[in-house]
């Protein structure tokens, strides 16, 4: 299996551990990743506000980079996934909007020929391998670990939504052997998209979820989006400041959680890079009691 890998900006910057864990995980299950170097930003939720045409064109360029290699796209960020999927839906329409986009892309030197399939790694793992094929990889079941899944809003609502993504996340958490703690409610949002403009309001939004994680005794949060991870992990101290109480809830990327269950050593998947210590997860009593194949360590990327 070969995929064009679009990590997005955040996994190449402030959440590089997501990139490390994805590469480890892909190698472990036999997925070849051809990274789309220089693919650039998908526009997040900002560029579509000032110029929706540009937003689609940026994403169409990324789609083209994969299509030119005859590859489908693998994403690890729910927002990138939503933007690329929304664009791919637009590019499969027969509409004036699509024709206008094609004209402008041509002017910009982008030869848009076909629309590749775009899927989040979670979806690829379950669609292509499935629970039965993935299960043998679980050499260290995370039994007893209480995990609060946090799927990004963009994964299940809005124009680029992938129906079933929340359920998929819960299934993969269960596959790892961990216990799903249903903390997230529909009106929760991590507040990432206003972190730059109103840190207090964003912190208040993430504090609501984090407080409930503590109340419901979740050992950690798992996200499918490096953006949610940024809000919940890097900015957790700010949420604590707003709430006036400590949370100290570790936040893992889904790829890290699976890699842990598949036998990765914590350092090779960047668990030491988090702002909120993940030691309690890496040394979870039930996990430590399980055997780890030392040979698997060699799958790790150099730090």
């Amino acid at each position, binding site marked *: 299996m070969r995929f064009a890998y679009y990590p997005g*900006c*955040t996994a*190449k*910057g*402030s*959440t*590089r551990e997501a990139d490390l864990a994805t590469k480890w995980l892909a190698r472990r299950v036999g997925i070849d990743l051809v990274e789309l*170097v*220089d693919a*650039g*930003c998908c*526009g*997040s*939720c*900002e*560029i*579509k*506000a*000032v*110029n929706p*045409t*540009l937003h689609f*064109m*940026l994403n169409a*360029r990324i789609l083209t980079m994969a299509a030119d290699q005859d590859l489908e796209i693998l994403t690890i960020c729910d927002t990138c996934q939503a933007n690329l999927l929304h664009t791919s839906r637009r590019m499969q329409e027969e509409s004036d909007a699509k024709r206008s986009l094609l004209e*402008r*892309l041509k*002017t*910009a*030197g*982008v030869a848009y020929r076909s629309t590749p399939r775009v899927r989040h790694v979670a979806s690829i793992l379950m669609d292509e391998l499935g629970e039965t094929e993935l299960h043998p990889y679980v050499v260290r079941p995370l039994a007893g670990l209480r995990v609060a899944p946090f799927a990004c*809003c*963009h994964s299940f*609502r*809005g*124009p680029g*939504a992938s129906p079933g993504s929340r359920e998929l996340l819960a299934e993969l958490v269960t596959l790892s052997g961990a216990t799903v703690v249903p903390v997230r409610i*529909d*009106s929760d*949002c991590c*507040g*990432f*998209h*206003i972190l*730059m*403009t*109103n*840190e207090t*309001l*964003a912190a208040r*939004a993430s504090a*609501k979820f984090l407080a409930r994680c503590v109340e419901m005794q979740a050992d950690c949060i798992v996200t499918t989006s490096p953006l949610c991870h940024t809000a919940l992990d*890097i*900015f957790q*101290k700010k949420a604590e400041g707003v709430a006036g109480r400590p949370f100290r809830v570790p936040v893992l990327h889904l790829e890290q959680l699976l890699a842990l269950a598949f036998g990765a050593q914590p350092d090779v998947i960047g668990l*030491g*890079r*988090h*702002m909120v210590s993940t030691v309690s997860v890496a040394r979870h009593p039930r996990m430590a009691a399980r055997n780890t194949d030392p040979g698997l360590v060699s799958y790790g990327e150099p*730090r």
Partner: protein
Amino acid sequence: MDAASRISARIFRFDPASDAEPRYEAVEVPHQPHMRVLDVLDYAVEECGVGLGYRYFCGVKRCGMCGVNVNGKPVLACWEEATPDMVIEPLGNMPVIRDLTVDRSAFERATIDLEPRLVRKAPYASFPEPYTHRDVAATFPLMNCIECYVCSSTCPAVSGPAGGPRTAGGRRDFVGPGTLVQIAKVALHPKDELDRSAMLEQASIDHCMSCYRCEQVCPVGIPIVSHAIMPLRGVAAKGPAGIARFPLEFAENVRTHVDIHSGSLFVKAGGWLRALASLPMLLGMLVRGKTRMRARPSARARREVEALFEAAEP
């Protein structure tokens, strides 16, 4: 009544004038096919003698007055099918007048203050005016809004149960999606000639978290974020105070760096003072290898992205 033929509802009761705190009243209602939440409330009052406060006028998803939370989900009582076990509560983000009746006036006031009407300056070209359905295509989906404020009741950017958007120093808290749909109807209309950028800045439109929760709950299925809030954010970004300019800064950052360069965007959006205040966090990120001092896109990628920006200009 056996379990299959009855509906058990726990209904929120609270009268701020006399109650110290809310309580829940349980009612058992015989199930009828296609029974709606509103039917359950009517039954509670008419047959069980519950002196319940709730509100509706039309009963057919037109008046937008019967919004309630059912099992945590904001819905219209007149349209939502009753289920065997329900907890029925008032909408969020608004003060309770009594029981399920909420005070929507903070949102309604915000809507009125933001001029929800076409403002024309030039004389009409002719009568009827020469414009077609294509000219109003952007506003067309918004015309279905029934002003129920169900969207605003569950918006995480709205400031909480104290009662919708407050005003401080001339600037309001985020006015909520319901109000912005009303404004977008006219602001995106080709015949509107009012520069609305300043008032949208003051309405804190930049606080929308883009979570699409409003779209998810809208009883009439309006794509609120895509068709109302995003275009209005584009208008506000060019406002005179510059407080909603972030999308423009973001676009400029992509134009320069191809990938987002979050460090420079952080400083640009919040200024050096905020960066200084965040120094412990930034140092922590540096120690953990979570900062990229310089993005290094290739010259080719820069050229390609620059070409996209040029070709996308209106």
